């Protein structure tokens, strides 16, 4: 796994007079479009506010230990504030509290942390997002049918929230049965694709069509992996499919009607607000403890609305 | 009742019957020679005694008690120690650690270094090597010295039975003499000693009694042995008689030498200098000529061959084969018509995990088939005919080389050179571990090769065979070629004097 560190420090006339803060922004990983959008948002905030943003992800994608090391290195190196998307709600408590103890304030983005010492928590409500996706799928199915859930990865809090939201939405529809919800896609698109293939194989009817009516995937890599399998088998579009997050591949599928809904977060805003909140705090202004960046549903119908378009193709870094 | 008694021992390896109901008895204060052809089962018998392998049938008694060692350390606990035919040392450990490996003096698992080194020094002094430093890594020692360490391992711990399996195959005359002293003193202090060798002179010099094995069975003697066990006093048998018992017929004309007419020069070495050895060696070799190289262990004969062949880096000098300069690695040497036999067949000579045919044909696969493809049938047929003409004891050329006895492995390695039909043969100790009969076979092959116009460079530590087989003999001393004379002008004493620089 990996991430680029880059510095964005532009002196804008607006920002003269404010002290130039050094703010570390730490994503969970970097190979998803999602993090690129967060990076873009963080940079925009940096240039608007005239602060320096240092972008650095864990060396090993999705590795908690590796993310702890990144935070420690920033503590040693000395920054004015840390904006972090914690890979784990508990494991990251110690290093983050250590940073806070050493006088470095921390803003949490994307996923929660079991602590209340941070400045603010800027994130999507993932449970709501999952539920949104589930309700959309239920509506597409008319409240009855058989569905499957391909989970993301063991121990990932934000996707678990989404999965939970989705399953709760299913429970509200007694006509819907969840055929499978214990298979994991794993960290990459390739593993997700294999998992999806094996998940669908026993669900194929002799005539090649599927014996299920709906599919939900809780993040980008599982959604892409599932999409590939459906495309391969010529089933794309023939089964209702709701995914999460956005990427060029998924947008194309949405346009072709192969995906019937994408739950979108607002990563650009997350990065932007994360840095902005931190700067406000550093300037001794008061900030909200919880900032919801919202979840929106994109469908083949509404995909061309400007505000949806903006979320589907967020500015990237 | 004899001290050590082996009754009805049998052992088969798959289809090979290595031992067939062998009886053997050795007493304390006795040095027993065990002789026989290659593959007759000598090593197998002694490996059973030392607990390395287990017999299919039969039993052993030691000092009047039932003796059935589970493993080598069990055997050592019972006082049975063995010097193995192939070196078995740990190169990364020191001399002292090797000598006491498995039975290190220790307290609560912590080595007692001083004790360890003192006792090692004692053992080495008894062998006549008080100056060998006990804290050197064994991997850094020359082969001959390693053999000493191996022997020290057997005599250092208090044991009652000592087995030597061809201990002198890489020792000089001088070292051999010292070893004999040790063997005699073991006998005099009441040990039972078994001594395996292909050198009947050695047997005659150091052994009291002799037992002959043939095809895994003991050849019955004249009934002079004790308690019905077959063993004859060495003095009561002539060499011819022993050989007759070994092979079932008498063997004569040990050193065949046809009338050879040397042709043009085919191998020319000028000022050849390696990293350490050799230094500034000049020599030239004609077709149809056999040039012997004598010298002490460590004099650099092996290094000379390796440098000529391109296995070791050459610092200065040049090698020409039929006038063409050799510039590269061994694969070029083969292409130029030069082949080499290594003295270390286990490490370097043979791919033990592969078959006889694979090993024999490896350098000349291009002769079978074309475009890089290999015609197996032709390849196998050729290998089979050579295996037969060399008298290799095997179930077929598809057998793994690791299953063969030491001597038969050596024959495979020699077969490879002859089969490839090279012009220049570099032979390093070609008869090491080979029985008397096969030796004369190999001499014949060398002779035949020379007659066909090939040139042979023959390195050996066994002077009689050099004197018997070669046209000219060169003596090597500290990496330099001291003097080259026709074989007829050399005597054993002359060679030794030249080699030691006396």
């Amino acid at each position, binding site marked *: 796994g990996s991430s680029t560190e880059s510095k964005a420090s532009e002196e804008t006339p607006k920002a003269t007079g404010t002290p130039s803060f050094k703010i570390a922004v730490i994503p969970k990983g970097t190979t998803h479009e999602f993090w690129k959008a967060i990076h873009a948002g963080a940079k925009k905030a940096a240039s608007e506010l005239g602060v320096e943003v240092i972008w650095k992800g864990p060396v090993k994608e999705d590795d908690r230990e590796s993310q702890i090391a990144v935070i420690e290195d920033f503590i040693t190196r000395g920054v004015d504030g840390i904006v972090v998307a914690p890979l784990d709600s508990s494991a990251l408590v110690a290093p983050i509290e250590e940073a806070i103890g050493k006088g470095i304030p921390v803003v949490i983005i994307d996923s929660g942390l079991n602590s209340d010492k941070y400045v603010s928590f800027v994130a999507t409500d993932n449970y709501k997002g999952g539920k949104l996706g589930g309700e959309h799928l239920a509506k597409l199915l008319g409240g009855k049918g058989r569905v499957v859930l391909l989970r993301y990865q063991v121990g990932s809090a934000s996707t678990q929230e989404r999965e939970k939201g989705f399953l709760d939405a299913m429970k509200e529809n007694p006509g819907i049965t969840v055929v499978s919800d214990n298979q994991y896609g794993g960290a990459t698109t390739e593993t997700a694709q294999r998992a999806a293939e*094996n998940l669908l194989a026993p669900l194929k009817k002799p005539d090649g069509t599927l014996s299920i009516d709906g599919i939900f995937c809780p993040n980008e890599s599982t959604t892409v992996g599932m999409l590939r399998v459906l495309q391969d088998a010529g089933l794309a579009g023939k089964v209702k499919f709701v995914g999460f997050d956005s990427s060029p*591949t998924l947008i194309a599928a949405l346009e072709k009607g192969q995906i019937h809904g994408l739950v979108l977060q607002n990563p650009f805003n997350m990065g932007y607000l994360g840095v902005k909140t931190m700067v406000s705090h550093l300037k001794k202004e008061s900030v909200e403890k919880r900032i919801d960046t919202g979840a929106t549903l994109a469908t083949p119908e509404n995909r061309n609305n400007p505000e949806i378009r903006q979320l589907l193709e967020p500015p990237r870094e | 009742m004899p001290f050590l008694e082996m009754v009805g021992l049998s052992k088969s390896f798959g289809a090979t019957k290595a031992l067939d109901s062998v009886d053997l008895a050795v007493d304390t204060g006795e040095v027993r020679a065990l002789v026989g052809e290659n593959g007759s089962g000598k090593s197998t018998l002694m490996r059973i005694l030392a607990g390395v392998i287990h017999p299919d049938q039969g039993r052993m008694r030691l000092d009047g008690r039932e003796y059935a060692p589970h493993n080598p350390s069990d055997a050592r606990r019972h006082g049975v120690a063995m010097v193995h035919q192939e070196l078995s040392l740990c190169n990364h450990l020191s001399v002292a650690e090797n000598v006491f490996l498995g039975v290190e003096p220790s307290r609560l698992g912590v080595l007692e270094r001083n004790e360890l080194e003192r006792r090692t020094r004692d053992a080495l002094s008894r062998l006549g090597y008080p100056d060998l430093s006990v804290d050197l890594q064994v991997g850094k020692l020359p082969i001959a010295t390693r053999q000493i360490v191996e022997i020290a391992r057997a005599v250092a711990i208090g044991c009652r039975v000592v087995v030597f399996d061809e201990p002198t195959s890489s020792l000089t005359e001088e070292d051999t003499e010292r070893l004999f002293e040790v063997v005699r003193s073991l006998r005099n202090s009441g040990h039972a000693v078994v001594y395996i060798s292909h050198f009947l002179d050695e047997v005659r010099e150091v052994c009291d009694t002799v037992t002959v094995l043939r095809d895994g069975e003991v050849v019955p003697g004249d009934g002079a042995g004790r308690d019905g066990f077959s063993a004859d006093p060495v003095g009561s048998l002539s060499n011819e008689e022993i050989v007759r018992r070994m092979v079932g017929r008498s063997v004569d004309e040990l050193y065949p030498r046809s009338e050879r007419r040397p042709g043009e020069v085919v191998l020319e070495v000028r000022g050849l200098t390696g990293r350490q050895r050799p230094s500034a060696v000049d020599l030239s070799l004609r077709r149809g000529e056999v040039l012997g190289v004598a010298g002490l262990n460590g004099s650099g004969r092996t290094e000379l061959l390796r440098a000529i062949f391109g296995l070791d880096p050459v610092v200065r000098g040049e090698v020409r084969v039929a006038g063409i300069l050799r510039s590269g690695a061994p694969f070029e040497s083969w292409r130029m018509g030069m082949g080499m036999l290594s003295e270390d067949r286990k490490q370097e000579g043979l791919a033990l995990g592969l078959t006889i045919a694979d090993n024999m044909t490896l350098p000349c696969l291009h002769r079978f088939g074309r475009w890089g493809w290999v015609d197996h049938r032709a390849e196998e047929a050729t290998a089979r005919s050579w295996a037969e003409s060399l008298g290799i004891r095997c179930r077929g050329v598809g057998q793994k080389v690791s299953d063969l006895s030491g001597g038969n492995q050596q024959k495979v390695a020699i077969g490879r050179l002859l089969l490839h039909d090279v012009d220049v043969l570099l032979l390093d100790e070609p008869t090491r571990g080979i029985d008397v009969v096969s030796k004369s076979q190999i001499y014949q092959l060398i002779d035949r090769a020379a007659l066909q116009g090939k040139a042979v460079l023959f390195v050996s530590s066994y002077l009689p065979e050099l004197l018997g087989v070669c046209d000219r003999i060169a003596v090597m001393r500290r990496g330099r070629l001291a003097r080259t004379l026709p074989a007829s002008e050399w005597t054993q004493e002359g060679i030794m004097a030249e080699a030691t620089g006396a």
Partner: protein
Amino acid sequence: MRRSETWRGVLNTASLLAAWLVIFLVFSVLKPESFPSVRNLETILRQSTIVAMSALAMTYVIVSAGIDLSVGSIAACVSVVIAVLLKDGYGPWTAVAVGLACGAAIGLLNGVLIARLKVGPFIVTLGTYLIVRGVAKGLGQEQTVDPQRQVWLNDLLGSLGPEERWRIFPNGIWLLIALAVLAALTLRHTRFGRHVVAIGSNEQAARLCGVNVEATKVWIYTLSGLFAGLSGLMLFSRLRLGDPTAVVGMELEVIAGVVIGGASLSGGEGSVVGSIIGVLIMYTIRSGCAQYGLPNWVQEIVTGAIIVAAVALDRLRLRKTA
């Protein structure tokens, strides 16, 4: 090979095939409605192809007593190279050619370091494992690269539509089969193959016997890089995008497949066909467990246990016949 050995080889392959059949049958009984079908077999084959491709050349590497840890990184890197070139508008043939050339070049680098510098293959390829992964991420700008083009590469491993059923398998699998046959014949029946075996059995003896050990090793690792490149091509074809973080840990799967297939890591032994079956066994287990609905962690346990058991049984059988 000697006749006796050919027999042994055939027997070994037969017993491996039998093992695979048993596993397939077990899952067929557990999931009779979906598992025992040609389509499912095709699915398993398509999943195995990426790993199997590298396993072909890895057989050579392992038979020569070497190891190549960089194959996964090379595959990921080649998938990125192909995707980037396609995205930049190059034709698919150019993309594939350049991608495979990159793979072979990395293999060549491995080979030269191993043969010339005499550094052990484990360390050299551990180094390139890291380096090439880094390069892949750099090339892809730490992103998956989606060329968003409809090219024939995309269908190398796609499942066949009903009108194409006459082809039985997609082209990628046919390519694998053809290369496997070629690799198997080369190992057994050419000088190069015999030299590989000799080096693995006793490198010093091979050198003494006039085998050009260095050149042969360079070839072996170059081949390994090239075939890892083919794995990368297959990976691209499956994902239709270049993914610098894909197939992490693939090298261990490749090695496991080769070893289940009868190769010994100390060299001198191994067969190409065995390796393919070894990979197939692993993927059949995985697919079977998943389709039977076992949780992922049970799948891992079962796969691990079967790997150990397969090799242990093999050793026991050999010891009996020896």
